[in-house]
């Protein structure tokens, strides 16, 4: 069964706006990762946040992690048309060399 559940399943915003996607998970984790998938392509790693971190930034990306609520959010600021893609969260549990992926959020940036 899926570890991560993402919300919303689809999001459509105007270029320049901020996009926020959420991920909830069920069991304790070592880290949580976000990936992007452009249509017809493989996934690309965006950012990783460890269980002892609360917030992390990378360029226009900001990730937060709340282990007490077992949830994470990905914020993309000042969105661009090129950000149109599906975004997946994935969790890594301690000692397990596997990731469990959520179902993804499909983000559309309208010009």
């Amino acid at each position, binding site marked *: 069964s899926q570890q991560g559940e993402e919300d919303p399943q689809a999001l459509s915003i105007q270029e320049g706006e901020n996009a926020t996607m959420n991920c909830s998970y069920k069991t304790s984790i070592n880290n949580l990762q976000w990936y992007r998938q452009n249509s017809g*392509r*493989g*996934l*690309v790693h965006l950012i990783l946040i460890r269980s002892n971190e609360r917030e992390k930034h990378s360029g226009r990306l900001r990730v937060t992690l709340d282990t007490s609520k077992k949830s994470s959010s990905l914020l993309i600021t000042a969105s661009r048309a090129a950000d149109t893609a599906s975004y997946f969260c994935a969790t890594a549990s301690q000692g397990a*060399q*596997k*990731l469990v992926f*959520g*179902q993804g959020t499909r983000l559309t940036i309208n010009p």
Partner: protein
Amino acid sequence: DAGITQSPRHKVTETGTPVTLRCHQTENHRYMYWYRQDPGHGLRLIHYSYGVKDTDKGEVSDGYSVSRSKTEDFLLTLESATSSQTSVYFCAISQAGRDNEQFFGPGTRLTVL
């Protein structure tokens, strides 16, 4: 795509036929993974490998087998393809001790008629 190739990229086959998908890496990463991606299910792990000849099952391993005889190659075999195995298959790799950040291949679209 981080030195990962998948072949074939597209395949159409008939129910009951055997199918082998190949993943090849040039990164010398220890771990290799096979996922399938279906609408509404995200990515689900089929099998993974933690070294040459060392493999383990994932979430949806029934109907699939794998082999890894060399570090660079990880094969996924459908012994007798079924229509429920129509999917997009992704290979991924990761290094040991790197938080399991994974790098993905371009995918193989398999259609079983």
